[in-house]
């Protein structure tokens, strides 16, 4: 992978978000701003990785945002384009986009491990820093709650409680996973421990046998040479 370096990060204040206390938020909580914002220098690559389990859905959305923090509504320059490649742990390319201003991808993980999303921007003269927002969700958080609400005709509170239930289930599963991993690690450590003990004895054995061989060989040699 090419060098990953971050440029200076211009701060960007999106319009009308810093609401004074007491004012209610916009109706759609998923409207923007759940994403993380990164800065990409032209000519450089930035890679973000996430560990995804087998069979889990992964959904990603990305778009280039205004570069100047003081003018969030400024026109996005056409030249600010990024390219993205998402690779699986075994190297298969799950998504590829070249020179786009926004995009999205979704896939079901066939292999467990680290999925890598690498962004890069072509070289500019003079070098510019392109800001982009990237929202990557996997597993449980990909569930489309508004559609679940519509389908089941559940009211908001029930939906919230359903979400809580999903979260708790997820926590439970994660605990199982952690427990499994801890067991594997304990196994590995125990094996290493016993292997060390075995190797200690082997080391002593090799030492003694090599010394014995040496002595025997030299003795035979000297007897042959009629020195002893």
């Amino acid at each position, binding site marked *: 992978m090419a060098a990953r370096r971050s440029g200076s990060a211009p701060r960007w204040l999106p319009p009308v978000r*810093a609401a004074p206390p007491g004012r209610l938020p916009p109706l759609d909580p998923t409207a923007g701003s759940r994403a*993380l914002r*990164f800065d990409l220098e032209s000519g450089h690559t930035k890679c973000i990785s996430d560990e995804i389990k087998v069979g889990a859905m992964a959904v990603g959305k990305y778009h280039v945002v205004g570069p100047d923090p003081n003018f969030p509504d400024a026109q996005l320059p056409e030249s600010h384009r990024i390219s993205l490649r998402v690779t699986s742990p075994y190297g298969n390319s799950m998504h590829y986009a070249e020179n786009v201003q926004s995009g999205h991808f979704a896939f079901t993980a066939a292999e467990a491990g680290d999925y890598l999303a690498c962004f890069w921007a072509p070289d500019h003269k003079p070098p510019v820093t392109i800001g982009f927002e990237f929202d990557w969700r*996997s597993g449980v958080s990909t569930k489309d709650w508004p559609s679940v609400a519509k389908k089941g005709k559940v009211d*908001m*509170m029930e939906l919230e409680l359903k979400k*809580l239930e999903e979260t708790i289930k997820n926590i439970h599963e994660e605990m199982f996973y*952690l427990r499994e991993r801890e067991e594997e690690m304990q196994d590995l450590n125990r094996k*290493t421990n016993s292997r060390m003990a075995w190797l200690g004895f082997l080391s002593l054995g090799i030492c003694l046998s090599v010394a014995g061989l040496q002595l025997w060989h030299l003795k035979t040699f000297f007897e042959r040479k009629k020195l002893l």
Partner: protein
Amino acid sequence: MARRRPAALLLVVAMAAVLAAAWRAEALSVTVTDTECIHEFVPYEGDTVSGNFVVVDHDIFWSSDHPGIDLTVTSPGGNTVHTLTGKSGDKFEFKAPRGGMYKFCFHNPYGAPETVSFYIHVGHIPNEHNLAKDEHLDPINVKIAELKEALESVTAEQKYLKAREARHRHTNESTRKRVMFYTVAEYLAFMAASALQVVYIRRLFSKNVGYNRV
């Protein structure tokens, strides 16, 4: 489409306030060569921003342990809100002094690139002030939001543990490989040294070198 009455509309909006209470993020990893900055939007002043990061070591060859990386959290106004130096993994939590785009910068003082797995969560609980302002905001929503926040903190701890476990496993496997390799290398070196010894002694006694020299 049925016309919504203002009260019902307010209730829906209040529910949306609860929905907006917890902002989820995934535990992502970036490779930090020098400095990497991540921006996260904090919508309200007083929101609790919590998170953690763990340095999942690359293969460090010589030094026993990486001295750690620095984390600096900068508020939209430019002030440093939170600093952590020389840590190879830690949790952090702070109350946002104002709303806006916060910058989380990881700085690696040493040249070797490090992979950092981080998780940032912004939580908001509609407080009593909101309750007083709008009588349709049911106190139960506040409780649900608190419950959600508590669960999110459990999730955050889990992600931290998972990342640390990954790092621990990495260290263990590296130790195992190194121990095996060095032990076998030690045996081979030992045997080679003793073979060289024998060869040298034999040469000392060989006729063409000199019979009475020894």
